[in-house]
């Protein structure tokens, strides 16, 4: 069966520090991968998506970047965090080429102080 791992679960980082969140998927190949952010009381905002290794599409301009070094690995990064980067970050995957559901990781609660 397929599983998605996302870590860490919680993170407190000072303003100006770097960020690296990692997500890996098991039990499937060639998945679509996504990074979402959920601010308090708000819906999920799609930040990045990827349909293949090295292929990254950004949905909103921001202080973050994403990379997909391997087929089932998706990384969210920042060189210098801002207070506004605080939020709940979710990684997700879906089967490529078929419009079906997305499977989400457990999320990372990031607090920038």
């Amino acid at each position, binding site marked *: 069966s397929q599983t998605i791992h*996302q870590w860490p679960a919680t993170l407190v980082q000072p303003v100006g520090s770097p960020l690296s969140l990692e997500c890996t998927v098991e039990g499937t190949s060639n998945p*679509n991968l*996504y990074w*979402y952010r959920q601010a308090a*009381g*708000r*819906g*999920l*905002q*799609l930040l990045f*998506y990827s*349909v293949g290794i090295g292929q990254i*599409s950004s*949905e909103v301009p921001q202080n973050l970047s994403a990379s997909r070094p391997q087929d089932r690995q998706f990384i969210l990064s920042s060189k210098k965090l801002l207070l506004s980067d605080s939020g*709940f970050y*979710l990684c*997700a995957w*879906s*089967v*490529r*080429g*078929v*419009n*079906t*559901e*997305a*499977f*989400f*990781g*457990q*999320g990372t*609660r990031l607090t920038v102080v």
Partner: protein
Amino acid sequence: SQKIEQNSEALNIQEGKTATLTCNYTNYSPAYLQWYRQDPGRGPVFLLLIRENEKEKRKERLKVTFDTTLKQSLFHITASQPADSATYLCALGETGTASKLTFGTGTRLQVTL
């Protein structure tokens, strides 16, 4: 601009009653629509998908309707239980390899004894 509206106020339902949640959208022509459940501090979990050419979908105690003329989806939980208490998100999907989803802000359902 595209907009997805879900009732931001919590819905309080007595156990055994039917809960009905609404998702309205504007400036959007989705190929499909999905409903997810999200518990506090967790990632969303997929519940149901309905395509643009479908009027209704059922799964156990869940029922979803999709009216592309009204630009509205209704999500019903029959015989509601306290365990159904959670936030429910609707998401609109577009055709394409990336299968991107745009989420509403969600409605919190509270089922009481």
